């Protein structure tokens, strides 16, 4: 029962694709120096549905600049037709233009779905987009939806959430659906488009007798999106407004695997992470319960868990006693599975202050320390440390390995400390299942065996002492950006923002 054989996921990616992604990883996007804007998010969705076409209702700049994909700079959006608004349209409205543009876009590109994306210009002039879309739909042989950025409140990233919500609201949720009884949808982020990491989870669910209706996003078509309505359950990585809507309108159950809701009920820190052996067992049991498959699940989980633990016992032998420094945010479950000793926890709260309350920040700290205690780790906690404090602690605690993204690895390497970058692992492997622990074990073993970098050229240039991954100039740019964007921003708390051993920001934690 291999999902690959069932054509549910595509094949493995060439390593160069990861390198192409990572070469841009030091560019300070994702709320560091800029925010993408809703059009970029909507373009992501249009790009992830392979037979859809974005139609930007706005002036040329909104179409030209959005060819750049700030979520994944290595992927350009090549097709970005627009309605080419000018000042006359601003005065007299551009509804007629949009109506004609939808028909033209259909005739020219033959898409299965047109996603009309509004811009600030059209939002301000108040075109009745809904009326235009309804009328134009009658003239084309494909689906047409529109996204304004107003459907989902503050659900982030707005453009992605809003377009998916629009798709669910305007197309997916309908009455005439043939249900695929006993099946689930596995929904990944459209920014990642790597359904491969769902392979093991899908296989485990199949073993439990739970059918896989769809895995998104991976060569996903408009038809696939419409078929989502046939499943009994949507399993998503994080909160998705459109899945909530499907539950409300179509009675398709909804289960998000990450989030603090489960923890909040009993303040049990083991409920935080859905990953690693313990987290995965819990999530799989929960899904089985929703699907009424507890009986089948029990033996499947036991069998696969035993096989994974047996492999880990052999593989993790040489990691015993390896002392690591870890950013708060990375799943301690996985580190327990691979047998390393978490000797330092780095907690950077500065980025969190934009979306999380002070109480929540303290709760995260408490929960992580409690979990460390349960797992038998005795880490030293460093909250927003300076570079000097961090290095001194690492020396005192005899840290062998620091979990750090490649962009700041040189800082530790010059001090003789090895680093491990788990961004690739998080992007392509981290999911519910037993294999990620084994994969992480291999990643750590490779990192420990790697030749030490002794004289990185990057050390020739000056980096900011506070924001260690940025030059002083860029640190000022980032600082200014945050100052201008955030009411809660305090310059004093900015020190070391997204610096050493920082958690890479992505759509899950912004």
């Amino acid at each position: 029962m291999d999902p690959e054989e069932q054509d549910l996921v595509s094949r493995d990616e060439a390593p160069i694709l990861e390198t192409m992604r990572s070469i841009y990883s030091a560019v300070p996007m994702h709320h560091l120096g800029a925010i993408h804007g809703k059009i970029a998010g909507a373009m992501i969705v249009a790009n992830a549905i392979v037979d859809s076409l974005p139609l930007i209702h706005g002036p040329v700049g909104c179409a030209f600049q959005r060819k750049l994909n700030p979520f994944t700079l290595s992927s350009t959006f090549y097709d970005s037709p627009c309605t080419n608004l000018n000042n006359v349209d601003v005065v007299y409205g551009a509804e007629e233009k949009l109506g004609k543009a939808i028909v033209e876009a259909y005739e020219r590109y033959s898409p299965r779905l047109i996603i009309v994306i509004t811009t600030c210009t059209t939002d301000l002039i108040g075109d009745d987009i809904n009326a235009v879309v309804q009328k134009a739909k009658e003239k084309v042989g494909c689906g047409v939806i529109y996204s304004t950025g107003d459907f989902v409140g503050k659900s982030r990233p707005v453009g992605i959430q809003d377009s998916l919500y629009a798709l669910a609201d305007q197309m997916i949720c309908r009455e005439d659906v043939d249900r695929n009884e006993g099946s689930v949808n596995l929904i990944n982020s459209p920014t990642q488009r790597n359904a491969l990491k769902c392979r093991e989870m899908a296989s485990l669910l199949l073993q439990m007798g739970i059918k896989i209706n769809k895995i998104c996003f991976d060569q996903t078509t408009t038809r696939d999106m419409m078929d989502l309505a046939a499943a009994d359950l949507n399993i998503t990585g994080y909160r998705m407004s459109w899945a909530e809507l499907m539950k409300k309108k179509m009675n398709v159950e909804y289960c998000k695997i990450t989030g603090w809701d489960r923890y909040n009920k009993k303040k049990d820190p083991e409920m935080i992470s859905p990953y690693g052996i313990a987290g995965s067992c819990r999530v799989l049991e929960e899904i089985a319960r929703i699907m009424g498959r507890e009986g089948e699940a029990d033996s499947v989980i036991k069998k696969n868990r035993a096989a994974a633990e047996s492999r880990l016992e052999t593989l993790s032998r040489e990691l015993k006693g390896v002392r690591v420094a870890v950013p708060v945010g990375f799943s301690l479950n996985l580190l327990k599975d691979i047998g390393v000793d978490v000797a330092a926890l780095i907690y950077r709260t500065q980025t969190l202050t934009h979306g999380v309350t002070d109480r929540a920040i303290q709760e995260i700290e408490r929960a992580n320390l409690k979990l460390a205690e349960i797992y038998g780790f005795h880490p030293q906690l460093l909250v927003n440390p300076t570079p000097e404090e961090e290095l001194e602690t690492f020396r005192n605690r005899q840290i062998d390995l620091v979990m750090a993204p490649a962009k700041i690895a040189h800082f530790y390497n010059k001090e003789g400390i090895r680093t491990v970058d788990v961004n690739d692992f998080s992007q392509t492997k981290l999911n519910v299942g037993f294999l990620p622990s084994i994969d992480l074990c291999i990643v750590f073993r490779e990192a420990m065996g790697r030749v030490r970098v002794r004289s990185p050229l990057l050390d020739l240039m000056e980096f900011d002492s506070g924001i260690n991954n940025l030059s002083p100039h860029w640190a000022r740019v980032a600082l200014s950006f945050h100052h201008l964007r955030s009411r809660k921003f305090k310059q004093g708390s900015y020190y070391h923002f997204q610096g050493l051993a920082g958690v890479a920001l992505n759509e899950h934690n912004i």
Partner: protein
Amino acid sequence: MSIIYDPLHDCKMVGALRAMHGISDCMVIIHGRNGCHCGALLLQTLGSEQNSVRVLTSGLKASDEVYSGEERLASAIRLADQTFRPKAVSVLNCSAPVIMGEDVEGLEMLLEGEIGAELIAMDVGGPEGPAWLGYEEALSRLVPRMQASEDEPRQGINLLGFKADDFCSRSDLSEMRRMLQDQNLSVNSILCGSSYEEMQRAPQAELNVLLGGDGLECAKAMQEEFGTPYISVPYPYGLKKSIKFIELIAGALEKEVDSQVLVREKERIKRTVENAHMFIQGIYSTPVAVVGESGRAFDLAEFLSDELGMDVKLLAISSCNFATQEKINTVDPHYQTLMIEPDRWEMNQALKAARVSLIFGSTFEKRIASKLQASLVRVSYPVLDHISLSGLPFAGFSGIAPICESIINSILNRNKEEVSA
């Protein structure tokens, strides 16, 4: 005429950004929503020197579209002034605030004297026009900031139409300076590729020289204001255009061209040709397409056609300037088909029909080049997926070797197995 348009060019904001960001001590504030700032920041970060990107946002939010964002903008200007101590702050007022009627010029007066930097504000809403108009207008906005000194003699030239974020532009500029210096001609100021102070000294030049016709509005304004004459020269791609570049400038200044220098340059290029003559023979008659801005692409097409013997099947002008019409009217063009600011879909159809082996274009031609299995030589704005650190120019006498290298290597390094029949 089609309604939908997949543009090859950007909006007025980016044209103005390219001009203002070229001033090395100018901070640019994008007074607009997140997307406009993000786009502007990315274009500069990926397309120019990474450690001198000076683009900030005003932080305009949706609520400001109801209650006005002027206060927020004022804070951003103050912050830019205090944090970066720039000589100038350029405020680019994007679509939303332009429609809202934000009074940025009033703000300019309000903050006068309060901040150390010169404040240059302009409306650059997306519906107001294309990038090249934004570039022209931005350059013109600099004229009132220029300072003429009657005590100093006028000497040297100003180069107008320089764009610091064009691929290899800094290297091209060094080569142009070298070529001029070899003829005892000095450069006074670069618009825009100088410091603010150097820009202010522009009226001290004897002549304004427009690269490929860019910067005409500014040149006209300077002629009226300071009496500075101007000429337009080709962007110096290849031997012929490089010589013409020198001859036109020297001629306008009534100076003799040092022909010995030209002989030496020709000899140098001859050796380059000798070193790769078999391959240069090999690319003769190759069908190619050029996609690029008016100020460069016409001259590049002529070099490829006239000097390398390539068959320019299609010339697509991604962005015009005031000289475009004159160039279109050329009696003996160096291309087979010309498209002016075409829709990308239509251009791709034309490229497909032209069956070209090579496309000279921007990053955004990567997919069509790949689809047509043609090589892509990145030379036109924006180049965001190729870097140039070696200081080798594409322009001038010294640019001939690097451009030939790029062309020939783009063919030689292809894996034939990846190119299906």
